[in-house]
């Protein structure tokens, strides 16, 4: 039975590939001949292919849950003791499984797109399905022929228990971080496909943009959440006290998010003013390419990243795919250039359009900065023969002014009028925010702030004031016109104009995140080795190691430190209980023992006191700790929640008009 299930997985995966090819051929024939029966069959084949992909994924999931260690993949990433949640998340823990999971998401999206458009968009849909099938073909080819999650273990070996999932990954956040990222990465295939279909069919108006706006927003949100969860996990689990390390793989997810952010802004201009048609095409092509490129970075072994998979034969394939997408789509774009010209031009320097334009330019600049730093080792190796890396100092130095420029535009752009903004309006809109910012500037200077930190805080005040004013104006207008109460007016305003006010809420979330990022300038840390009863100091706090308790739990052994934290001159603040754990401690093979530091954080809105129990010597009873005081980190997470909330408001569907 077990064998036959795994066989079902292999077979359905192979059949899926077959139906994908069949679908492409049938639709291509339909496009040549116009025989609708061919299209109907092609579309059905696509549905069957997608169904088979989903089936094979479910089979792999079942094998993981049932611990069928006859499959190499199952033996590698799970053990009998692995909790159910992590047996499920093992689906995307390894290379082969994660690629199958990737196709699974493509397949799910394909089914939704086909269903949504079953009676509409008849001209574009054949192309949309065909291109999506081509993308699915690429990934299915890999899971079938290069890295097959259903490969059995070598003949003659029976495995009684598998390796198990690494304890670092046994964390709920880590279980959902990859799938959300994938939802984002893969999701850009949909707007990309519609853009290409629009180019091919010659419908270069804003039709395709209306079709993909919500898809894009959803995908952008998913990628955003994926990135934030990764950051949160790194901060809560890894114990180096930060949430963003500018690692190549982190950067790989940030780059498409940046270009997608530019895209969701600039499509507004195309919808409202029919401008930037070519630019929008370029943005979506780059975004999709970057999301495939991100996968390439993790799989090729080209980057020495903490995340990267071992070098594999997938690298050249991915690179080939990236070049194919770039060459194909830009060639198509070039051929269709005459159709993409529009009459409208930006009329004034001080207009919403120009605000958006600069926002776009700066997002692209930031993406380039990240790209430059990430690819620097590869570029220097090609040019100078030596791999030269640039680490976090480069990214921080370069991106701070770029990020602050974006923050500035967040305050200005949305308040400017379309076409042109008169001087009177400018003065009316900005006099209060400028005044408030000047007051804040004075206060910050008095408190001794300077440089980027001061600029960042002043801009945060400026942008927040403009957003609050926008809400206040909207509410006041409704109050005057409909005589609604403030709460009702607020609610109605949100409901009637979800995009706009959802967008403002997102902006406010971003402002709070910037406040959190800025806090990093004040981080303090100490690393020390002490014994029970010893004390040490950091930033006006005293830490006392009161005792080290031991505890044996089902899947690990733990030393639990009791650290008493006292604010000097004030009194006790809290107790911290960071742990040093040994997973697989019952395994007689010492090499299988896996140490893990479970950190403890005392969080307030003002700062985090972050403690890591980094090592313990049982002979000398010496324990080493890393303690950090990280100001304002909470605001990064609070900002994240608000960012998600705002996007959900913007995404929420309007009630169908009858």
């Amino acid at each position, binding site marked *: 039975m077990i064998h036959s299930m795994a066989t079902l997985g292999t077979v359905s995966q192979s059949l899926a590939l077959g139906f994908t090819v069949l679908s492409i051929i049938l639709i291509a024939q339909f496009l040549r001949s116009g025989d609708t029966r061919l299209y109907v069959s092609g579309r059905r084949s696509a549905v069957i292919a997608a169904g088979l992909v989903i089936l094979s994924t479910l089979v792999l999931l079942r094998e993981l849950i049932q611990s069928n260690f006859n499959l190499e993949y199952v033996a590698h990433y799970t053990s009998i003791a692995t909790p159910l949640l992590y047996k499920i998340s093992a689906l995307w823990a390894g290379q082969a499984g994660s690629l199958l999971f990737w196709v699974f998401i493509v397949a799910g999206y394909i089914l939704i797109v086909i269903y949504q458009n079953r009676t509409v968009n008849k001209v574009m849909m054949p192309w949309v399905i065909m291109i999506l099938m081509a993308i699915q073909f690429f990934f299915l080819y890999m899971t079938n022929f290069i890295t097959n999650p259903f490969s059995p273990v070598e003949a003659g070996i029976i495995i*009684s228990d598998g390796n198990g999932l690494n304890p*670092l990954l046994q964390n709920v956040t880590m279980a959902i971080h990859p799938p959300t990222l994938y939802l984002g990465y893969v999701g850009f295939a949909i707007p990309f496909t519609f853009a290409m279909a629009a180019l091919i069919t010659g419908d270069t108006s804003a039709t395709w943009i209306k079709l993909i706006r919500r898809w894009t927003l959803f995908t952008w949100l998913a990628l955003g959440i994926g990135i934030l969860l990764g950051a949160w996990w790194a901060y809560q689990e890894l114990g180096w006290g930060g949430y963003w390390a500018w690692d190549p793989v982190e950067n790989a997810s940030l780059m498409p998010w940046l270009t997608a952010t530019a895209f969701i802004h600039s499509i507004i201009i195309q919808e409202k003013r029919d401008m930037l048609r070519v630019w929008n095409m370029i943005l979506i092509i780059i975004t999709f390419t970057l999301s495939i490129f991100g996968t390439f970075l993790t799989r090729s072994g080209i980057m020495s990243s903490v995340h990267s998979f071992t070098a594999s034969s997938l690298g050249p394939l991915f690179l080939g795919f990236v070049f194919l997408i770039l060459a194909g789509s830009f060639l198509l774009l070039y051929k269709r250039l005459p159709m993409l010209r529009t009459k409208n031009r930006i009329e004034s*320097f001080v207009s919403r359009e120009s605000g958006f334009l600069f926002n776009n330019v700066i997002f692209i600049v930031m993406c380039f900065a990240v790209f430059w730093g990430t690819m620097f080792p590869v570029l220097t190796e090609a040019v100078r023969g030596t791999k030269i890396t640039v680490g976090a100092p480069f990214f921080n130095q370069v991106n701070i002014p770029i990020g602050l420029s974006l923050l500035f535009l967040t305050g200005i752009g949305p308040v400017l009028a379309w076409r042109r903004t008169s001087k009177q309006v400018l003065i009316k809109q900005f006099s209060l925010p400028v005044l408030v910012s000047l007051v804040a500037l004075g206060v910050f200077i008095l408190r001794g702030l300077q440089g980027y930190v001061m600029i960042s805080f002043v801009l945060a005040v400026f942008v927040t004031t403009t957003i609050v004013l926008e809400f206040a104006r909207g509410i006041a207008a409704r109050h005057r016109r409909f005589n609604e109460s403030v709460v009702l007016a607020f609610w109605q305003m949100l409901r009637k104009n979800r995009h706009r006010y959802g967008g403002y809420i997102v902006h406010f979330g971003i402002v709070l995140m910037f406040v959190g990022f800025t806090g990093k300038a004040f981080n303090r840390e100490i690393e020390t080795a002490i014994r029970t009863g010893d004390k040490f100091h950091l930033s006006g706090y005293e830490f006392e190691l009161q005792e080290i308790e031991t505890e044996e739990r089902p899947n690990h052994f733990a030393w639990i430190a009791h650290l008493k934290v006292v604010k000097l001159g004030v009194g006790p603040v809290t107790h911290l209980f960071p742990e040093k754990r040994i997973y697989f401690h019952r395994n007689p093979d010492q090499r299988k023992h896996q140490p893990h530091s479970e950190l403890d954080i005392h969080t307030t809105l003002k700062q985090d006191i972050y403690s890591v129990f980094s090592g313990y010597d049982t002979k*000398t009873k010496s324990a080493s700790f890393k303690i950090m005081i990280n100001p304002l980190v909470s605001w990064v997470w609070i900002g994240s929640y608000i960012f998600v909330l705002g996007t959900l408001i913007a995404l929420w569907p309007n009630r169908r008009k009858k």
Partner: protein
Amino acid sequence: MNNRSKITITVVVVVTLFFIWIISGTQGKEVPFLSIEELVTGEYDQDRFRLGGNVQAGSIQIAEDDLLKVEFILKQGESIIKVHYYKTRPDLFADYCEVIVEGEYRNNEFYADNLMTKCASRYEGDLRDKNSYNLDEI
């Protein structure tokens, strides 16, 4: 000058300035990523480098008086180098593990101030190592 050219010129200027800023930003922050052999045999103007390799089994020595202080042998192919590190070590740091170190090269030894281990999920290398499975005799 009409509005269009004003905007175009501003965009070009802004983009150019940022690009110069980005490209010049690497100066002073460049760290060559060398092989151990290149580091030992070559001559370099600077003293900060990045190395990759595996921790030689049995080479990890933690100082008796200070748990944070560690020495180990980094192995890359046939080349080896002694590495000193005096900070909190990642949990995954152990014999055989794949690490990247960044720091200074002095007197034929490496003084790292940054030690990174490969991400936990990626033990693809174990795949062919039968010892990593609990094998039952057939």
